[in-house]
């Protein structure tokens, strides 16, 4: 790993042109770097923005300089923040000058790493900083914010404390057998473990929802050939420019896009296989398409309103019963051929060609996605896979001990119960970074962008 006691500098705002840019300096030379930049000799007031000219290379820029003396700063070091016009040229010049004045360029995540090392944030919170920066959907922002304000950490600490209390009482029973009594009865241990296990299980269970928030909900467009699935797909993709990353389909014949529709992060998939299947390939295409429909979080079933509903479409409709699904009556620019009473109630009229109804379809998708992740009202959601894996490991140990204690007929000796409890605690503490391997930190902070 790299040095943690020198002075680092980086542009903290996103790359590219923006109104205001921020250069952050952290380390023992922060104040001195500030003085050099502003050609100032007086000490900086704490936490008060000073308006000044900063001279960097051959440029002079108007800037606001704020000095945060450590340890009450973001990183715990002395921190200097320089806000200037957001031109990349100006910001780069300030960074260059800061380097001449004794700072070195920060690596990705290094400011937050320092905050973690100085005990300003725990690991969960540090990761939240990264997630917040990368957030593309409101749900991601909400989850990262809850993580950053310590709600998740608090829940974990509470569970860890419950486990530690049990450990202490069990240890006392083993270490003081002469006292002739147990400091805690096995039934009580069992009940307490079951309680902690339940809390953990609830948290682990939010991991599914967390995954929706993190990766996006799988929204699959289904329907028989030629109803306009691909057109609807294109209309949705085209209507919303907030494309995040195009990701390759799971199979060559499924096209998908990761995008934010009306605030909801989704992976929208078009099942192309159904249309092309005129020969033997058809069977395979159908199989893949129906596989995608099976694993979808939300299904958008496209029907063609310009002709009557087919039997196989009725079969599809039935198969979606009870699942989050939206039915679109496409080709609404053409006369509706559905006989009265024969249509589908609640089908959304859409014209992929004319663009009518596409926005309403997007809203319906966003609502369906929100319905997936809302509902059961757990305040804290685990979105991070590292957290989920560790929590699941802790849960497994706690459940194991609880099950052994709960089993009638025999009892697991206390030191083995404690072994489970200690292993559970270790996994919990690895989440918050109370216990951590150095390599893990490298991995976590490598995922950051520079300046955070």
């Amino acid at each position: 790993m790299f040095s943690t006691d020198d002075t680092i500098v980086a542009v903290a705002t996103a790359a590219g042109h923006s109104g205001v840019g921020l250069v952050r300096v952290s380390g023992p030379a922060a104040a001195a770097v500030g003085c050099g930049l502003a050609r100032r000799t007086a000490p900086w007031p704490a936490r008060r923005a000073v308006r000044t000219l900063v001279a960097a290379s051959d440029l002079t820029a108007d800037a606001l300089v704020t000095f945060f003396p450590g340890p009450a700063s973001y990183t715990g070091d002395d921190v200097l923040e320089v806000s200037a016009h957001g031109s990349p040229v100006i910001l780069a010049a300030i960074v260059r000058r800061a380097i001449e004045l004794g700072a070195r360029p920060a690596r990705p995540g290094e400011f937050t790493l320092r905050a973690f090392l100085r005990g300003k944030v725990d690991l969960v919170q540090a990761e939240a900083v990264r997630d917040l920066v990368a957030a593309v959907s409101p749900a991601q922002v909400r989850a990262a914010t809850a993580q950053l304000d310590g709600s998740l950490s608090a829940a974990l600490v509470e569970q860890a404390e419950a486990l530690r209390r049990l450990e202490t009482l069990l240890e006392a029973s083993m270490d003081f057998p002469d006292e002739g009594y147990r400091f805690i009865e096995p039934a009580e241990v069992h009940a307490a473990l079951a309680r902690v296990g339940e809390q953990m299980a609830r948290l682990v269970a939010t991991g599914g929802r967390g995954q929706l928030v993190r990766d996006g909900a799988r929204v699959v467009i289904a329907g028989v050939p030629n109803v306009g699935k691909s057109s609807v797909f294109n209309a949705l993709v085209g209507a919303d420019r907030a494309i995040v990353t195009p990701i390759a389909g799971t199979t060559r014949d499924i096209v998908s896009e990761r995008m934010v529709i009306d605030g909801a992060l989704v992976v929208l998939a078009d099942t192309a296989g159904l249309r092309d299947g005129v020969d033997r390939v058809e069977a395979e295409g159908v199989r893949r398409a129906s596989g995608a429909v099976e694993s979808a979080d939300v299904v958008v079933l496209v029907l063609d309103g310009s002709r009557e509903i087919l039997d196989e479409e009725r079969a599809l409709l039935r198969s979606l019963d009870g699942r989050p699904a939206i039915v679109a009556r496409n080709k609404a620019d053409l006369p509706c051929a559905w006989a009265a009473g024969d249509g589908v109630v609640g089908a959304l009229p859409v014209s992929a060609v004319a663009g009518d109804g596409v926005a309403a379809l997007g809203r319906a998708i966003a609502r369906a996605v929100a319905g997936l992740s809302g509902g059961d009202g757990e305040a804290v959601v685990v979105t991070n896979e590292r957290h989920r894996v560790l929590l699941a490991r802790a849960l497994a140990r706690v459940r194991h001990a609880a099950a052994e204690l709960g089993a009638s007929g025999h009892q697991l000796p206390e030191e083995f119960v404690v072994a489970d409890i200690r292993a559970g605690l270790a996994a919990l503490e690895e989440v918050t970074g109370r216990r951590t391997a150095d390599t893990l930190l490298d991995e976590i902070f490598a995922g950051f962008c520079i300046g955070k």
Partner: protein
Amino acid sequence: MGLCTLSTATIGTMPCNPAVGGTAKGQLVREIDALGGLMGLAIDATGIQFKVLNQSRGPAVWAPRAQADKQRYARWMAERLAHAPGITIVEGQVARLMLNGQTVTGVLLVDGRTFRGKAVVVTTGTFLNGIIHVGDDRRPAGRVGEPPSVHLGEHLRALGFTVGRLKTGTPPRLSRASIDFDRAVSAGVFHVEHGDEPSVPLSFLTEDAPSNTVVCWKLHSSTESHGAVRRHIARSPLYNGQIQGIGPRYCPSFEDKVMRFPDRDRHLVHLEPEGLDVDEIYVNGMSMSLPEDVQREVIASLPGLESARVLRPGYAVEYDFVQPTELRHTLETRRIGRLFLAGQINGTSGYEEAAGQGLLAGVNAALAVEGRPAFVVGRHEGYLGVMVDDLVSRGCLEPYRLFTSRAEHRLHLRADNADLRLTERGREIGLVGDARWDAFQARRARLTRNRDTLRRVSVMAPSGARVTAEDALKWQEVTAGTLLEGGIALEHAAAGGFDLATLQTEIKYGGYLRRQDAEMRRALHAEFQRIPDDFVYRGLSGLSAELVQRLEEVRPESLGQASRIPGMTPAATVLLNAVLSRKSAEKTG
């Protein structure tokens, strides 16, 4: 080699409870034994009641313990020392160390004699500036009836060692003849406690199970006795400020128990004979420093002890100890080369803790003199390692005693496998003689054959299916003993059932043991990351001034040890690691 003591007559003295072993301590005695130490053999030869504690719990906390005939124990030890080749026993009081610069070269006695030596191990117990208290009666003494050592304490202070004060106490002794045990037993106020049959010895070398020759008794203190303590509490030196030293929280005096746990209306008291032909009865659980008249009143208020005669009152003793953060893992001081400290002077209490350190300090002194590599036991190898690492990393704020909870790899550090953990290491450096080595190898071979047998032989499950004996042993109701009864040819030549205990535990709790092994391997990584002796902590931003000071005091030898220093956060450990790896990269790069 010279062994200097204030009085040769006190070699092997047990000033407190005449018992060896107990929770964590029993495991420790087995480790001492596995390395060729005498403690286990001595107690097996002179014990009068043997018992494994914690039998209702699991194998990792089963703890052998034995009551000693304290006179016979001391005599046995004294004889072994007298006949040990190469040991000269000297009676006298060491006043100071002789030094050449920062290296010790011998000792100077109060009477002017000098002894030169290439290494010195100091084991002064409770004697350094010892003061004993019985109520307001306080007098300088190392133990009751023995003078303290004052000069050496002052000398160590003058050399700059960080010296603190601790205290410990002992209960009154009663006259056995004055107690009507039969009446108290039939009145239901005493409960007879028998030793285990068959008994389990402490030493791996003891072949025949030693016999239990006495019974002990258990009773409960009464509200009257608690009332008496409360009435006179102002006369307790513990409570009126007369004693400054800090006592052990985990081994509280009777006045502490009464005052600190007011909601408990009774405490357990054990009456233990101190030997076969001595009159003294040890009153386990009633260590006191109240004035003698109050002690008599408290004793007389106990059910069954109304007319018991107090032979000697209990007392508290306050003494100097050297902060063990002054030591390396070899128990050599960092301040003075070739000077080793062991036992109660390092802040511990207990015979077993003292014996374990004595062994390690002695071995390392000899190895240093011969220019051979040090002998350090890891935390994953034994309670010896846990104890030394705790002492040198954490220091002492109160007397230190071992607990199984101090061992993070407890499942592995069992009484039954101490030899499997340590005897080979002892053999490598010459601690283990041929007899022990042969017995050990035979036992190891039996274990292997037994494992094979379990895998080869099948038994009938209740369902009627046939399973291997190994799988059957995983069932709760099946033990190695039941398999043996069922005709499976398991070998078990060692006394005390070690053979079967080890086999059974390895299989029954195999999942846990494997997980612990994995944890051990992971933890070892940090132990191998060495921190140079001259590492500069000052100026590392991110470490608090307090932590820097602590690190400078302890001078951890590895990153793993650093992480165990109180106040070290994982983040601080990571920080230290970052700096260390940068430094070593600079060096090689």
